[in-house]
């Protein structure tokens, strides 16, 4: 150990050196942050859900305690339930779509070829754009007399005017499309990383054994890509369930409630209708719905990571 300077300073520094102290240094502020920020929040959330409080009626600590009333109201609120179902449905459509798309793109971009750099740079662009911008940018594109319809007309050979923003299903497709457009980039990144990490020599061995391209893909590459696929699905669905920006900016959750995801509805309940307790109760229900999913996702991530360190690369 190097000699310290003045005894006082040396003493402090040496104390910080000790492994027991050193390793906890970053944890203290972080755990403190979480403890101060997230824990009280959660407790507050639970408490609020047990009240019957509207912001307009004064401070929350004066509000009436009504127990599980808010929950009952929430579960009877069909709009809430629809929003919940809709959100999961959107995710269920968007994520597989992206996965397939990205799989194809990543496989095509695997070996280096002229122009590959340019393609990958372009493909990553959407990720960098503010989702709110994407939202209204697409709203510009998708107006009845907009360029998108014009392109469709070109391909269809006749004038196409799909009313993307004012009709039920097209609006939903538009919102899903926004999500796919933007986040394919991230999934592409993950897949490219995964493909690059495939061990080379087992694949060459398989070639020498006479395996066809398809056999190599199916028996060797795909199983080895399982962790990557797991990560991509987890990441993407995590974000898809939070969908807020696109409905807000593309369609204002319209027409009607066609694109009202649960995040948007909760926002409305809490901020536009000011029924805070109801919003709190609904948030908790949402949390429960998502928690199952989170647990599964974490378990999968853990398993794949563990399997990787065990398998190594032989």
């Amino acid at each position: 150990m190097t000699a310290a300077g003045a005894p006082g300073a040396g003493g402090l520094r040496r104390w910080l050196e000790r492994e027991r102290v050193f390793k906890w240094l970053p944890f203290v502020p972080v755990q403190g942050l979480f403890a101060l920020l997230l824990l009280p929040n959660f407790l507050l959330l639970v408490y609020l859900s047990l009240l019957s409080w509207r912001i307009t009626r004064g401070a929350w600590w004066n509000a009436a305690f009504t127990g599980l009333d808010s929950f009952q109201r929430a579960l009877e609120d069909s709009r809430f339930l629809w929003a919940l179902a809709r959100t999961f449905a959107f995710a269920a459509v968007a994520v597989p779509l992206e996965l397939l798309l990205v799989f194809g793109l990543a496989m095509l971009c695997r070996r280096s070829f002229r122009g590959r750099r340019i393609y990958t740079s372009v493909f990553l662009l959407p990720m960098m754009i503010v989702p709110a911008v994407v939202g209204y940018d697409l709203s510009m594109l998708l107006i009845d007399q907009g360029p998108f319809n014009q392109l469709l007309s070109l391909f269809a050979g006749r004038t196409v005017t799909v009313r993307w923003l004012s009709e039920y299903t097209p609006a939903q497709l538009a919102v899903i499309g926004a999500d796919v457009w933007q986040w394919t980039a991230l999934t592409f990144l993950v897949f490219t990383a995964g493909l690059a990490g495939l061990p080379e020599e087992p694949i060459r061995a398989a070639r020498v054994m006479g395996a066809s391209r398809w056999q190599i893909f199916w028996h060797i590459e795909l199983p080895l890509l399982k962790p990557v696929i797991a990560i991509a699905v987890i990441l993407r669905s995590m974000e898809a369930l939070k969908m807020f920006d696109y409905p807000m900016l593309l369609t204002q959750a319209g027409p009607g409630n066609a694109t009202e995801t649960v995040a948007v509805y909760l926002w409305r309940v809490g901020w536009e209708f000011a029924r805070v307790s109801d919003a709190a109760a609904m948030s908790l229900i949402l949390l429960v719905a998502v928690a199952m999913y989170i647990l599964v996702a974490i378990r999968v991530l853990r398993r794949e990571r563990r399997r990787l360190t065990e398998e190594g690369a032989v």
Partner: protein
Amino acid sequence: MAGIRLQRLGKVFGATRAVDGIDLTIPDGEFVVLVGPSGCGKTTTLNMIAGLEVPTSGDIWIGDDRVTDWEPGDRSLGMVFQSLALFPHMTVFDNIAFPLRIKRVAPAEIERRVRAVGDTVHVGHLLAKRPATLSGGEAQRVALARTLVVEPSVFLMDEPLSSLDAKLRVEMRTEIKRLHGTLRSTFVYVTHDQAEAMTMADRIVVMHQGRIQQVGRPLEVYGNPANRFVAGFFGVPAMNFVEGELHAESGGARFVAQALGLSLPGQRLGSGPAVLGVRPEHVRLVSAGESWPAAVSLIEPLGDATLVFLDYGGPSSLVAKVDAEEKLAVGNRRSFTFRRDRIVLFDAATGGRLST
């Protein structure tokens, strides 16, 4: 069963000539070792034989087939890679069975053959395990089993033993040779380790900078090197090299170096700068006869012999390998000579062997 023929085989990567037009004929059943330092082209050559690299020039024949353009899978080869390349997500059984599954062999047949091969290489008890749980030697055998199970006509091996520790390496060397003895197939084995080459090969192919330097049986390559590179590559410790000049003499030649001069009667070797080569085991410590004086500067006892470093006045010491019983100490003054019939001379510029 098939022999291999390489005709004017070449591979160029951008500006580098990895393999520079080599010709080689490997008779069926021979165990051939391609040996050389890193970058000499041996692995590239092997990959071309396997079909993993496409030659930029020349042809390859396996048996009677001109396979130059064939896909690797059509060439009926077995290949073991340096990293063993076992499929980490499959059990040992599935690893060995994989080539059979590709060819759509019936499951019952697969079961039989995998178990048979498993017994041959003594991995039968490991069939349910995964590669990550195997030891180095066990993994080696599984890799071997995987190639054996398809009964290929040619076996290719790319430095398969380099990841093993010394003891295991020696064991596996014997295993592989034994396998060769039983199967009598053609083996093409790549290594950078000259000891491996010497002990395993029927014939050695020495490669350097993309070209074949010499082809021959191990003792031939050792005792009769074609050039300085080959001479210096084999033998531990390496051959002693002394730079000097050759002068034509009546009836022969004379080699003159900084502190050395000797006559070579009966040898017409021309004249000019030359390098004299003599192996440590051919440097003798003598007390009489034509010799040169030297002082012992370093002693390395090997157990069965002793290495003696001799300062004789030349630019670097000579190494002599002497009997372990010799009593020597640093600083001793001794005289040394060479076994005349074991001296080799090389052209200083080209490195080529000079002989009558």
